[in-house]
């Protein structure tokens, strides 16, 4: 029954995506072509495939998580198509590849369940660190690091004997692997870490050795920031670690020490890095350096302000005037063309995603599954929060993809894997 509801909602999301594409195309060219049908087919294929693998190997999976993801992907895809139809054509491939990857993962875990992942946690940790370091490879190697928009987050592979460059952001997948590692680590250690053994005046401290992971997390995040100039990824990783530590132990000291660490790191970063200073000043007053540092923020505000309550209508705004509108600022593009109504719908969808995901975690009896489901949900929730907060000036711009909505294969792949794991984890608890 619930699987049928899921199927109906997925068809709804695919219809939404194709109608959105039709409206954009109509507004621009006054006619419709194969893009509309292709969009419906790709959405139906991608999410239908995950749905079918759920039916086959995780029939008790939560039926809401996939439709919410499909909805967000549909809204994002419409704006990507609106801004650059060529990117949207690629995005369709990424969607299909992400769907196939998620289906493969569900199939792989069909007998062993997510528990098998726990066994390979150090492999995942090494793989994640390796992936994070990949962009630092010299640019002359066949697999090379690449700098995009001033951040060294990309890896480019030149396919031999073919004049094709494939680019991907390994950090996106690394985040998922790190979450699996952390969930596994905390499933073993959370009891011990929650034990308060020492007091320092009024502050009660856990064993110093249990503080290790916090320091490691802070150190890793800071290293990422320094070498890859990626403010967003470091903040996201750090926030995720602290959130998971707190969720697993219930100890406020981790949050407290985490906040101290992040403030300290922030102060050091502010003093050391010009690009961090620029981001902060652009956040405080984007119009002070309107043509420079504040340009992107200001363009986002213009777009959203122009969208007002109901938006310009799909294809009738000018979100293409916003820098990075297909990735970091896709939320502003939605705000312009769909108005406050669209923005609130997107925020609500993310909130729903977090609610459903945490709901899955709460119902889990198995510690690893609980931390895994909780951690992956937080990963999506915190990432969505950080990037949207940057767009609406609640925080400085951090430079992250908008989960499920942004253009980008690596990001979509990571999101699809998260959905597969959430679905599988919820299935195992109900089975």
């Amino acid at each position, binding site marked *: 029954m619930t699987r049928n509801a899921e199927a109906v909602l997925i068809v709804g999301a695919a219809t939404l995506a194709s109608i959105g594409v039709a*409206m954009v195309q*109509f*507004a*621009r060219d*006054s*006619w419709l072509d194969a893009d509309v049908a292709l969009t419906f087919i790709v959405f139906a294929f991608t999410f239908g495939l995950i749905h079918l693998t759920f039916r086959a190997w995780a029939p008790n999976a939560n039926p809401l998580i996939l439709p919410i993801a499909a909805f967000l992907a549909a809204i994002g895809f419409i704006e990507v198509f609106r801004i650059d139809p060529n990117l949207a054509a690629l995005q369709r491939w990424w969607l299909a590849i992400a769907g196939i990857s998620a289906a493969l993962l569900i199939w792989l875990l069909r007998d062993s369940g997510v528990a098998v992942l726990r066994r390979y946690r150090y492999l995942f940790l090494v793989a994640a660190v390796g992936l994070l370091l990949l962009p630092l490879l010299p640019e002359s190697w066949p697999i090379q690091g690449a700098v995009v928009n001033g951040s060294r987050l990309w890896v480019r592979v030149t396919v031999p004997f073919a004049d094709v460059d494939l680019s991907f952001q390994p950090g996106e997948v690394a985040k998922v692997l790190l979450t699996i590692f952390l969930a596994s680590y905390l499933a073993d250690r959370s009891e011990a870490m929650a034990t308060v053994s020492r007091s320092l005046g009024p502050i009660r401290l856990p064993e110093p050795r249990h503080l290790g992971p916090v320091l490691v997390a802070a150190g890793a995040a800071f290293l990422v920031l320094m070498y890859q100039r990626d403010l967003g990824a470091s903040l996201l990783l750090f926030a995720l670690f602290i*959130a998971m530590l*707190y*969720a*697993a*132990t*219930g100890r406020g000291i981790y949050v407290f020490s985490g906040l101290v660490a992040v403030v300290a790191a922030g102060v050091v970063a502010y003093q050391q890095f010009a690009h961090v200073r620029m981001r902060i000043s652009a956040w405080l007053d984007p*119009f002070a350096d*309107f043509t420079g540092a504040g340009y992107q923020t*200001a*363009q986002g*505000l*213009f*777009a*959203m*302000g*122009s*969208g*007002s*309550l109901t938006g310009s*209508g*799909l*294809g*009738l*705004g*000018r979100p*293409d*005037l916003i820098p990075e509108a297909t990735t970091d600022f896709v939320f502003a593009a939605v*705000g312009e063309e769909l*108005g*406050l109504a669209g*923005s*609130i719908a997107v*925020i*609500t969808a*993310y*909130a729903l995603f*977090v*609610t459903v995901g*945490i709901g899955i*975690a*709460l119902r889990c009896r198995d510690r690893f599954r*609980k931390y895994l489901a*909780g951690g992956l*949900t*937080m990963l999506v*929730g*915190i990432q969505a*929060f950080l990037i*949207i*907060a940057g767009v*609406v*000036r*609640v925080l400085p711009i951090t430079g992250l993809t908008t989960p499920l909505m942004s253009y980008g294969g690596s990001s979509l792949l990571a999101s699809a894997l998260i959905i597969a794991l959430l679905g599988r984890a919820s299935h195992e608890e109900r089975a």
Partner: protein
Amino acid sequence: MNDPLRRTAWTILAGFLILAVATTWIQALAGPGYRDDPRNPRLVAFRVGRERGAIVSSDGVVAARSDPSPDSSQTFVRSYPGGAEYAHTVGFVSVLFGARGLERERSADLVSNRDTTISGVLNALMGGDPRPRGLRLTIDDDLQKAALTALGDNRGAVFALDPSTGAVLVAASTPGFDPNTLIGPDAQPAGQLLDDDPDQPLLDRSIAKTYPPGSTFKVITTAAALDAGIAGPSTEYPDPGALVLPGSTATISNYDGGVCIDGTTVTLEEAFVRSCNTVFARLGMEVGAERLVTTAEAFGFNSVIPYDLEILASAMPEARSFADDPPETAQNAIGQRDVRATPVQMALVAAAVANGGEIMIPYVVADVFHSDGMIESSTTPAVWRRATSPASAAVLTNMMERVVISGTGRNAAVPGVRIAGKTGTAEVTGAPPHAWFIGFGPVEAGPGEPQIALAVVVESGGSAGETATGGSVAAPIAQMIFAEFFQ
């Protein structure tokens, strides 16, 4: 052990609530401020970046077009292939200077009306074409070019139309400007240069500037006399060298300061042909302020002439302001003193005479057409008002034809074509006179035979300066346009 997890979830959800509040603030409360911020590139992009329909002359020459921008897949670049030729009528759409001319007035037709409302989508699915529509002008490209060539370097204007329909054939104003310079990368200095130019190249002298009409106004004075039955073409008047105005020591003299013919008497027709001020000053006083104003207003003075663009109203002072002042009446009657007319107004005076006394509403947009060439709507000629009786118009036609055959307007004559006209040399204190010619041809056009009525003004005599007269400066310009038209 679920409580910390719950608290974490609530924290993230609280974060989303903050985002929702911030988004609401930006879009709902601060939204209009951001939307209307002059730095918001949308203000400009929507104006200049969208596809606009083509504007073409009646003979198919492109005056304005939109081409896909080489820089961006979704924006268009507007260009004006004719440069200054259509600049005043077609206007432009500029980032810095806004929109003018038809680009502004007919923007609703020119920009795409595609939308994603349900009715818009249905319309498109039913085969409706939501692409921007184009405008076909009534202006004839060859004629427009001839007028601009004839005006040359002078400050001045030509306005010509088909008297039987109101279709505008020429709308020329010099000096002009190249609208392409106002939309290019150097728009700022180019616009500044035009703004600072004392010759006011941006001003459309044909419809937005008034001049004392001088002797061309005698057509109206004569019409008033004819309509009232006060005089006919053969009514005789004294022919003094100068007319002492009653109740004053002021005099009105003829252009050359001499008598009109022989100093005895002169018929009204003779006086019209030679443009004798003394006779028309006397006639004006006989007609009286009341009838003079009524007739001028019947011809369109003190009214906003309906048109595709905004026309400055021509001015005739109120009757009661000069009814008790014969000298003032006399001066107004010869188109001096307080009478001011735009070239389009004086072209309509000529057109009224050509059209049996009826003025058609002038129009410059003939058709609105779809991108596939199908005509969506065409302008239907319509009568604006009756200026004078058919009988008076017929008499005036004869008199005006004689002006071109043997009078002050001989320079406008085209061999083999019956041209009618009236010259004017409008005195201006402290500056050379404005040279006028109004006229039409052919006289007594057969059914379906193309006809043209026009007004030419050369500001401050042009290159002729103080020696300029309507006959010597404006009539030759009219002649070149007539010659092109009847070629």
